[in-house]
Structure formats: structure tokens, C-alpha cells
């Protein structure tokens, strides 16, 4: 990647960030080439970027189904593996089975949600990554990768929107 360059720029304020991003777009730098790092979750599109599509819901759904089946196994199959009759109850009764199946479904849902989201964010990831401590202090950081040819315009755009700490992002172990 010798013909591209990566920069990090910090902003004090979201409007500037948004405008800067727009102008960078006009410079022909795609969204994928930019990463915005913030200490606060900004609402959708606040920074003028469209969001990627998530597989999380499907992971959750799959988990839920798995849980349902496991619950089904425990509540409906196991009573027949070692048949013991109890006080006039059938080996499998609807209400108890319903409870067990429900609970295991929910358990799987929760767990798969958690694991799913970690997977999507491919967490945990402690390796060195471009980041700036000031982010949590309220600054917005824009990480962008662009052809060296655009270097001057990019810097000019950033400065024009009161960006500071422009430069090579330091890759710190997180």
C-alpha cells in the first residue's frame, strides 16, 4: 500500500466532522475508507454516512431455534429415556414442557445475542489499532485512507474544519 496514506484527524464538534466527511466524499474517498471514532453514539446518519447491514438478528434467531430444540429435547425426550411414572401425571405434560422450552429458548436467545454481537465486532481484539485517547474526552476522530495524490487536498479540507492532531494515527495496543 505504498501509494495510499492514512491519517487521523480529531474534531471538537460533530457539525464540522459531518461537513468534512461530505467534502472528503466529494474528493472521491468512499465511506469504507473512512472510520469515525466517537466517545458518544451519534444518531444514524448524523455524520452523513450510511450504515452497513447486520447479521446479528439472524444469529439471534438461529440461537433461539437451537434453544427451543434443546428445551424440547429435555422436556419431551428425556422423560422417555428413563421412564418413571409420577402421581398420575403423563410422562410429558404440556405446562411443564412449555415452561422448560420457553426458558431454554430465552436463554439461547440471550446468549446468542451476546456472542453474536461480539462476533460481529470481532471482539475481543486487543491487537494494536489506530486510536486516539482524546476520543473518550469528547473529541471525534476521523480515520481515513486515501491515495497519496490527494494528500494536500485532504489535509486542507481537514484544517478548514478545525481539525487538529492531524497526522499518522498511532497504533496503540488496546
Amino acid at each position: 500500500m505504498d501509494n495510499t496514506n492514512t491519517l487521523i484527524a480529531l474534531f471538537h464538534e460533530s457539525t464540522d466532522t459531518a461537513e468534512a466527511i461530505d467534502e472528503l466524499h466529494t474528493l472521491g474517498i468512499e465511506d469504507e475508507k473512512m472510520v469515525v471514532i466517537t466517545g458518544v453514539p451519534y444518531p444514524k446518519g448524523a455524520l452523513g454516512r450510511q450504515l452497513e447491514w447486520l447479521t446479528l438478528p439472524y444469529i439471534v434467531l438461529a440461537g433461539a431455534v437451537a434453544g427451543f430444540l434443546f428445551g424440547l429435547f429435555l422436556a419431551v425426550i428425556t422423560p422417555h429415556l428413563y421412564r418413571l411414572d409420577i402421581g398420575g401425571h403423563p410422562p410429558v405434560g404440556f405446562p411443564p414442557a412449555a415452561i422448560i422450552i420457553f426458558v431454554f429458548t430465552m436463554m439461547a436467545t440471550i446468549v446468542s445475542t451476546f456472542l453474536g454481537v461480539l462476533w460481529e465486532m470481532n471482539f475481543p481484539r486487543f491487537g494494536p489499532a489506530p486510536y486516539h485517547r482524546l476520543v473518550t474526552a469528547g473529541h471525534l476522530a476521523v480515520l481515513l485512507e486515501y491515495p497519496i495524490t490527494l494528500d494536500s487536498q485532504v489535509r486542507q479540507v481537514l484544517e478548514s474544519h478545525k481539525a487538529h492532531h492531524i497526522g499518522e494515527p498511532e497504533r496503540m495496543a488496546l
Partner: protein
Amino acid sequence: MSEASPNQPKHANHPDQMPEFEERLLLAERKDWEINEAVLQPMFKTGRGFWILVAILGAIVLWGLYAWGYLIYWGMGTSGKNRPVYWALFITTFVFWVGISHAGTMISAVLRLLKADWRRPITRGAEAMTAFALLMAGLYPLIHLGRVWKFYWMIPYPNNRFMWPNFQSPLMWDLVAIFTYLIGSSLYLYLALIPDMAMARDYTDGWRFKLYRVLALGWRGTEAEWHKLHRALGIFSVAIIPIFLSVHSIVSWDFAVTVQPRWHSTIFAPYFVIGAVYSGLSALASILIIVRRSMRLQEFLRSEHFDSLGKLVLVAGMAWVYFWFAGFIVEWYGNEPIVRELIHEEVSGRLAPFFYLQMSANVIPIILLVFKRIRTTPVLLLGTTLLVNVGMFTERALIVIGSLQRNDLPFNWGSYRPTWVEISIVAMTFAGFALLYTLFSRIIPFVPVWEIKEGRLRYTLRRIGRLLVPTAAEME
């Protein structure tokens, strides 16, 4: 209330002077890093008082553990149980803790769904309470076993006995439901914690840095991460609600499925759930007040929060009375001999003191909470909410122990006296809860910083006549 929020006296004097103004624009004048500092600083300050508290709580816990060992070694006979009172203080406290655990999810999940903005500063405290209360509750199913070293026979796994547990037993439902709820609430707590761990990571070094770094899982705060986190939390808040409803219903069915008079009731599930919410919210209020005082978080936990919390408790309280009455009138009217006997025991018999304690401790707070003055004055609110929990504990004791002393054959009636073993073990769980919570508050940012910051994004001021009114932007 000197240590209460600085605005307190002001609207005590002239309440109509734009009270909303300062409050809604929470920390408007603060920079993000100032917020961070404000949240983190109290965590690092562990004074002598703190260590003394930890020492005392630790001592109680150790004593309780000794008592538990004693119980296991000598047998269940060292507790005060007998025939026919086969369940007593342990199960009572178990139900109580499960109840406490409910407000946490109630607050954070339900309010998150409803986008009630005032929840933001208190969610984490609530979720932590849920997790720890459940940990304590989870001990009792073990403690009350006659052969605790065989507890794993309840776990469903293929084993050399070819045996699977009996999934028709409410105790099995208990086991899985509580386990699920524990997992759910702790993951929920943790997920919302990740960004703040990253924040703490950036502000600390030494062992704390190492800890936070690990817990932050490498969070940077890219848009994608925020987006995914939001989705996950959204799913969680939906999924956790049916769980928390099911857990206490199942606990209630431990009793309701038997033919034991007064247990055998269809209203038990909702009655227990609402009772759980009532006691849980009260416990939350008490805890927040104490933490707020000890950690100087007046800026974050403001009287407005206690006001709204108070209102919730009030509503839950009224609902509890309603369910209690709905159950009671049927039993009273049905006039079944044994039930009549039990009601008589409660209203004018040996159980009367407990019954009236329960009723007064559960009803008086409802009346008190009607007054904003009480809801917004920490000390008064603390007293009120503690009273509620005294009432709820008594209520559980009456249901579990009171009912078991009577049954259909008068020849078999009995009575019960707790022993030092039981009391020590119960004390152990209370101390254990306090200890976990204290340590937690010093290690984990008690206020969800990122959520507060997020909240700030949504407000602008708008002038209406001569009034500056905060207006929230509807966004997600």
C-alpha cells in the same frame, strides 16, 4: 439535605421557577472529559471508612460460611425446621432476593424500550443490583438441600445413572429460570458496560488499566461498534422482560402447585411478580440513595430521578395491594375451614404481629410516596423504601412459614423457631450482597457515562414566552 443536589433548596422555596431547566440539561456546562473525571474520581478514592465497611461485611460473610459448613456437617437438624415446616427462613430469603433482583431489569430494559430518558444515570446501579441479588438468591437452593453435595443430580447431563432430572418439578423450573435470568442480566450489564470500560481504560494505568483493557475487549467507538451495540441492547431489552416475568412466576409456582392450603392459588404468579417489582424498586431507591451519598454522585443522581423512581414504587405498591386483596377476598369469602383457620391465625392468631407488620410496612409507604416532598428528600425516601422491604420480607415469611404450620389434619400442625445457623446464613447473603455492591461501585463506573453523554445530545433549549424549555429530539 446539604449533600443533596444543589438545586434542592431552590425549588423547595419557589418550585415554579423553571426547575426543569437546570435538571433536564444534565451537566450542560460540562465537557465530556469533566464528566469522565467526575464519574471516575470517586472510584479511586477508597478511604478508611470504605475499608472498615468491607472488613465488617467480610467478617459477616465468613461467619455465615462457617454456619453453612456447620449446617452441612451436622445436618439440616441444626436449622429450626421440623415437621411439617419443611421450608422456612432459607426459602423465605430466597424468594426475597429473587424479588429484589427484578427492579434492575424492570428499570433498564423496560425504560430503555420506552425511551424514558431519566433512566440513564441509574440503569447500571439497577442492573448490578439484579445480578448480585440473583447471586445471593441462587445460593439458597443449594443451602436448603439436605445433601448439598449431591446438588449436581439436578443438572441435566447424560450420566452413569441413566437419569435425567424431573422437568415436571417446579424446582427444576426454578433452577433453569434463575440460571437464565442470571446469565441474561449479567450479560446485559456487561454489554452496556463495554464503552465505559474503554473510557476508563483511557484514563487509568496500573492494574486498573489492565483490568479495564481486558473488559473493554478493544472497544474504540467506531460508528459500526456503536451501531451494533445499540442493536444488541435493543434485542436484550426485549428478550429479558419475559424472562424476568417468568422467573418470579416460577418461584411462585413452587408453592402454588402444591395442595398446601393458601399456597394452592392461581393468583400467586402475578402477585409474586408485582411484589417483586415493589420490593425491587424500593431496594433500588435505597441503594441509589446510599451510593449517591457515599460516592458524592449528587450531580448524576438527582432528585428528579428519585421523584420518578418514587412514582414507580408508588404504582407498584398500589398494584401489590390490589393483587393481595384480589387473593384475600376470594379466600376469605370461600370460607374453606382450613383457609379460614389460617386467615384467623394471621388476623388474630399467633401470626397477627407479623401480619400487621406486613400490612403497615407495605401500605404506609404508598401513602407517604404520594407526597413529592418525600419522593425528593433522600433521607425520607430511604426510610420509606426500607420500610417497604421489611414489609415484603415479612410477607414472604408469612406465605412460606405461616402457611406450612397449618394443614388439613389439625393433628399434624406445627410451629417453627429459627436457629443461629439460619440467621447467620441469611445475614451472610445480606452482607455478601452489600460487599459485592461496594466493591463493584469502586471498580466499575457506577454511572453509565456514555449513556449520559448520549442523553445530552438530545436536548436543546427552546424559548416559550419567558420560559426556556428543554426539548428532546426524537431519535435513536
